[in-house]
């Protein structure tokens, strides 16, 4: 439990410092996404080394692995997967509770700050390393008064260059 709080407080300190360093919320959001991306490209190897999941062959498998294995492993929560688009290329992750935002309140002058934007970068970076270009963004946020936190994931395309041998 102690390390959970340490994690939450460290993240909070990080976002606070970014808000001081950058003048406006948009820049902080971009920076969080970039940092998340850098974490994601490395985290994917740790995830694959420890979880032993195989390659996902469609976006539904990917969604399952993200929600049931990855989020569980790293944040201790299991978001639910809903709102599939008819083409099966978009879905939502609904987080009932987000460990990053425990004890956090957004002040009024930071209303366009996407506090947990690091998560979007992590998802984007990690999936890029397994040849999937995706877009992740927050569409609901408990910090802004919504009931749940919702991340919308959209599949853009399969990355065909630099495929590992055997994946064509």
């Amino acid at each position, binding site marked *: 439990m102690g390390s959970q709080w340490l994690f939450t407080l460290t993240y909070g300190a990080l976002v606070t410092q970014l808000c001081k360093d950058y003048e406006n919320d948009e820049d902080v959001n971009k920076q969080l996404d970039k940092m998340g991306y850098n974490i994601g*490209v*490395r985290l994917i*190897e740790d995830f694959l080394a420890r979880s032993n999941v*195989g390659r996902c062959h469609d976006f539904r498998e990917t969604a399952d692995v993200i929600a049931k294995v990855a989020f569980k492993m790293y944040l201790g929560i299991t978001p639910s997967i809903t709102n599939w688009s008819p083409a099966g290329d978009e879905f939502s992750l609904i987080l009932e509770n987000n460990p990053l935002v425990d004890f956090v309140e957004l002040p009024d002058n930071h209303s366009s700050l996407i506090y947990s934007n690091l998560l979007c970068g992590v998802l984007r970076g990690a999936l890029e390393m397994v040849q999937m270009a995706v877009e992740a963004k927050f569409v609901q946020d408990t910090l802004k008064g919504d009931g749940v936190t919702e991340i919308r994931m959209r599949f853009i395309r399969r990355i065909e260059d630099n495929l*590992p*041998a*055997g994946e064509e």
Partner: protein
Amino acid sequence: MAIFSVYVVNKAGGLIYQLDSYAPRAEAEKTFSYPLDLLLKLHDERVLVAFGQRDGIRVGHAVLAINGMDVNGKYTADGKEVLEYLGNPANYPVSIRFGRPRLTSNEKLMLASMFHSLFAIGSQLSPEQGSSGIEMLETDTFKLHCYQTLTGIKFVVLADPRQAGIDSLLRKIYEIYSDFALKNPFYSLEMPIRLNLRWTPTF
């Protein structure tokens, strides 16, 4: 030691980590008088035994040292050509150390990228879609085991043919790579791994 070497190859085929752990190689040092009863030849910047075999010296062994001083490729320590030196009766009796030549790091780099290409060919030859690629290469003196991650990094282990459990070793090396290399903020992805192991991950 049942594990001979570990190689880690990045997505582009470049060698980023290599570790050898051979038992001491067979080396033989003998004093010779003119004429030398072994036939020597120059090959790839080294002087090798082309024909002749005695007392532990075999065909393929390289000249490692002359009179106690290590040779530098095809030149002696003081810059003379080895073959010329050994062709001159005035230099005898001479003490020469022979042994199996070690691979230089350049050679290891080349071999790693060649293996990367072979691996790709192996996957393309597969009659089924989505082949895992080369998992094992077996010879009479060693077995090469290879594990390619979903992200394209290959972990290669050369071990004794009878050694079991290499699959779990490969997975374990993957975990160690993600702990020590990836969690080190000063390590850049895809670059050679040169990390000080005194840095331990404390997360």
